[in-house]
């Protein structure tokens, strides 16, 4: 091999080796994730044995997230109303602001922003919790006690996510619309009656149902990815921190991609 060939080979190796390794790692990770999902589905008949865990997780994911969901939704509604009235004030009737806020909130803003907030709150909590259990051998201890850790730890969290996200998003919808009405009233001077008229005229049940369908998918993806990331932690507290960050990044990206896919398919 000549010096020129050697340099060329080293260059190609430097460029392509990490890419190839990354691709293999990605598909390996994806395979492991789906093998856990498959195990979860295959053993879902055991879920009733862990009903207490499901209830605990519903409280953790649902009840404990209500304050932040309400807070975010209120401001999302207010900002949407204020910006709508700012952009459209001189052009269109005032009732349109109510219609615009309702449509935007139900179809997109409440489900998406709630999911992104919960990707941080719920996703990070789940990964940190399971990751800590992994590095302190609590998951090994569960297995040593002849438990199935996937059915015991992951399935209840995913079921709780699928059940509670839609409920949280319904709360988010309601509060965001009320926030929108309040924001339109105090900042843009739009009477509540005009806002409500616009809301009534534009409201379609499918818009709310679409948001709830999205919530089910978001609940699934956030909890399942968070559980998987926590489950595969290694390397002590540093590993827990890294996995928690991965969860927030991956679930946030997955939520926006899924948002687009669902909108394309269902609307």
């Amino acid at each position, binding site marked *: 091999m000549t010096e020129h060939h050697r340099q060329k080979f080293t260059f190609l190796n430097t460029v392509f080796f990490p890419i190839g390794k990354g691709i293999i790692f990605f598909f390996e990770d994806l395979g492991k994730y789906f093998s856990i999902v498959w195990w979860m589905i295959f053993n879902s008949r055991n879920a009733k044995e862990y009903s207490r865990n499901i209830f605990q997780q519903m409280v953790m994911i649902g009840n404990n997230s209500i304050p932040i969901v309400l807070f975010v939704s209120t401001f999302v509604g207010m900002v949407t109303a204020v910006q709508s009235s700012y952009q459209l004030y001189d052009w269109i009737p005032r009732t349109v602001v109510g219609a615009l806020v309702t449509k935007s909130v139900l179809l997109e803003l409440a489900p998406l922003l709630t999911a992104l907030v919960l990707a941080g709150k719920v996703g990070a909590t789940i990964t940190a919790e399971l990751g800590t259990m992994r590095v302190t051998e*609590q998951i*090994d201890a569960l297995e040593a006690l002849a*438990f199935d850790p996937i059915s015991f730890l992951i399935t209840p969290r995913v079921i709780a996510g699928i059940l509670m996200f839609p409920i949280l998003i319904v709360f988010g919808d309601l509060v965001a619309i009320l926030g929108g009405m309040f924001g339109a009233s105090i900042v843009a001077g739009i009477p509540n009656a005009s806002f409500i008229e616009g809301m009534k005229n534009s409201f379609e049940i499918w818009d709310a149902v679409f948001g709830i369908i999205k919530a089910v998918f978001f609940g699934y993806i956030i909890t399942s990815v968070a559980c998987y990331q926590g489950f595969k932690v290694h390397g002590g507290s540093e590993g827990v921190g890294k996995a928690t960050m991965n969860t927030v990044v991956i679930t946030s990206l997955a939520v926006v991609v899924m948002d687009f896919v669902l909108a394309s398919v269902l609307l």
Partner: protein
Amino acid sequence: MIYLKNIWKSFGEKQVHKGLNLEIRPKETLVILGRSGGGKSVLLKMIIGLIKPDSGTVTVDEKEVTTMSFKQLQRLRMKFGFLFQGAALFDSMTVGENIELALRRHSDFKDGDIQERVEYALSLVKLENIEQVMPSSLSGGMKKRVGLARAIALTPKYMLYDEPTTGLDVETADGINLLINELKTMLGVTSIVVTHDIHSAFVVGDRFAIFEDGQFILIGTKDDIRNSTNPEVRKYIESDIQT
């Protein structure tokens, strides 16, 4: 009986087991002695199927562990009690819930019986009235005792101890060693103890397997160790192994 035959295991580039062979006899306490981080704990996890060897066989009660289905592994694990190095108590549960978890899942005991079993298991490890305490409020030694109570709640046939005295002061460590011996006498269990602490090893062990660089360099009794001329073995006798 437990047999490990020609066990090979590597993690990435690191070869941790190089053709290990070991036999654990009924009712004995076998101590696996070696440096921390060498792969001793991995052996314990292999015995209950938490980790699979790259090659070789693990046999428990004449059944091959490495080829067992998940259900078979669950049945096998019910025969074992496992004390983890850091006790591995479930920190979202109280002490009582930690101990009763396996009883509720794997036994037909009613609530009252479970309560009695929890109290009995705690009394065996010399603890009382701490069922409602959270693990985070316990000292290191108490955590180990609760871990031990959880491990024996289902009256196992085999006990696996992973570094039972690591991180404990001498007095507490002696207490744990005493407990290991008492449990052996009271419950008649076969035990495997993994440790780097030669003092503890000599207090609890009937036989010893010295693990060095992925292999057992000596398997024998206390006298075999004392009489050995192998410099690696002498090192273990002359000084406590530094972690």
